[in-house]
């Protein structure tokens, strides 16, 4: 390779890498900031009342590394009453209404599924036997997993709402998350008797 071409190659590559790094460094800070601020006070407790905006309550649980936070129901700008976040146990959300006799209506929280990159707890809102909303409370090991989770949750939510069941395809690049998500979802649907 001629010096000129070598120089151009190195310059182009360096430019790409720096550009990529900059984009990457700017893309996630919001999510990180949220988890940082919220994870400190709320260790394993619920932070309810916040109606469904993204990144509400979250726990600092997970693998002890870096106190990594989590996204709260990144999927939705959805209804959802208070967002629970079981540390890793399977406590149903206190804010959720219990099924009140009539054919499957209300909110149901599935068991927390633990996967290698974090945990997933799915909550479904059911009205007259129809799934009207799904939200997921996720903890993630690190910010990349968190980002993958957020993306996967959004896609899975759409799929579940249209399929009206847990019988949907896994999300590419987020196999573990999809697996855990669907497990927790199935548990919630079982509670609802769907």
């Amino acid at each position, binding site marked *: 390779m001629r010096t000129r071409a070598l120089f151009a190659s190195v310059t182009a590559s360096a430019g790409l890498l720096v550009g990529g790094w900059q*984009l990457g460094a700017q*893309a996630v800070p919001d999510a990180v900031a949220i988890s940082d601020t919220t994870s400190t006070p709320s260790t394993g407790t619920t932070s309810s009342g916040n109606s469904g905006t993204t990144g509400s309550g979250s726990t600092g649980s997970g*693998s002890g590394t870096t106190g990594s936070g989590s996204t709260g129901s990144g999927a939705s700008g959805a209804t959802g009453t208070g967002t629970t976040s079981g540390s890793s146990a399977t406590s149903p959300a206190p804010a959720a209404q219990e099924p009140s006799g009539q054919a499957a209506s209300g909110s149901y929280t599935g068991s927390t599924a633990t996967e290698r990159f974090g945990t997933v707890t799915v909550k479904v809102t059911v009205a007259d036997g129809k799934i009207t909303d799904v939200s997921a409370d996720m903890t993630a090991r690190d910010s990349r997993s968190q980002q993958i989770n957020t*993306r996967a949750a959004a896609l899975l939510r759409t799929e579940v709402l249209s399929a009206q069941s847990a019988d949907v395809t896994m999300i590419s690049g987020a196999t*573990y998350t999809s697996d855990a998500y669907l497990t927790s979802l199935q548990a919630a649907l079982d509670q609802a008797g769907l």
Partner: protein
Amino acid sequence: MTTGTVPPQPLTPAPLLSAGSGSAVEPASSNAYRQRSRARAARRDWLGIATVSSAAAAVALFLSDGGAHQFGSPAAALTSLGIIAGLVATDLVCVMLLLAARLPVVDRTIGHDRALGLHGRLGKPVLYLLLAHGMFLTLGYGVDAGVDPVAETGQLWQGFGDMVWAYIGLALFVVVAVTSLVAVRRKFPYEVWFAIHLLTYAAVAASIPHQFSMGGLFAPGTAQRWYWLALYVFTGSSLLVYRLLVPVLTTLRHGIRVSNVVFEAPGVVSIEMIGRKLDRLEAAGGQFFNWRFLASNQWWHPHPFSLSAGTGQGRIRITVRNLGSGTSRLMHVRPGTRVAVEGPYGIFSEEARTQERVVLVGSGIGIGPIRALLEDLTFRPGSAVVILRASRAEDMFLHAEIADLCRRRGARLHVLAGPRSLDVPSWLPSSAAADGLDLSAFVPSAAGAEIYICGPTGWTDLVAADAADFGFPHDSIHYERFSL
């Protein structure tokens, strides 16, 4: 250095006359040569820049997609390094496949043999990157989960079926790379090696599932997805078109078959072939094809052979020496045998010209391509020198033909026969080497001249070194080497 001694051995009366007033090819102006050469150099630069940048782009896309945050803890850093190694390896595997895909732009820019040489040199780094990919990720996941690498490997193996395929793919890559090491490769017959090399496709296929599930290469909503999809589609379709469709169509269109097999010298035959519209093959002297003689005993064995005569007069010819199992069957190929071809390939031809004057140097079986070049190159009478080299005068096949062509086109011919020198490393016969002769004894000047060298590897390197010493610029030395 040059003592003015008469060059040794039979020196054919050097005909300088331009008897062939009908010298078919009109030489281009030196300006045109320079322009073409500059265009090729620019193409080469762009291809190089694109290749290096593609690896950088693969990493940059990962970083931009969140990877930039992943160096905080030892576990995350290990995992990220593993991912980056895998991404670069994947990118380079695509580059390797493209280098072997016979893309016309690659062939016309760096030539088929150099493309394959580069393909081979990338093999080891890619293998190391793939191994690093597996190692770093296993370590990273293991540290994170607090288990040792062995336990982590067990978990990965059991986790998803895709990972099993990934391990199989890695094992296949190792097999392919190891069998392609020069030392190992020589131990296998060509067919066996080629069959193993085809496993590359299986290795690539086996590694794809985990790129979708575990890896983020195709994660929806990312820029990576589009980059990798584009690269995969481009690589796959290039292979399909240029390694399969084009050769099959060329073969069907021209319907080439053997017309005659001519004895040239002990163990050397010329195979003449006829076919439809051979001029449309657009094969230049000095180029080669992969030939597959479709007889029951050898249809599976493609042979790379240069033309030993141009494609004019509705005929096409190669000259072949018996070098053992594969080529010995060629000695007895029957007239009428159908021939499948891939090609033409290579820029050991007019395509590579940068200068007006030419020097052609051939030895052994390399004399064949020199013969075809002599016929095809553009030059003015008196501005070409041809040097033929053989151990014995009787091995100098095609000699009469070449002498005739030299007369008609006005090229000076030197025929150097004699055993090689054992004490001095020289491409000349021992007597000439002992006299201290070198290229300058046969070529008036390196200025404004192009040199084409074709022969066995070691010999070719000696001529090329001599030419460089004599003052031929790097870009004006072209060679094609035969190795076994």
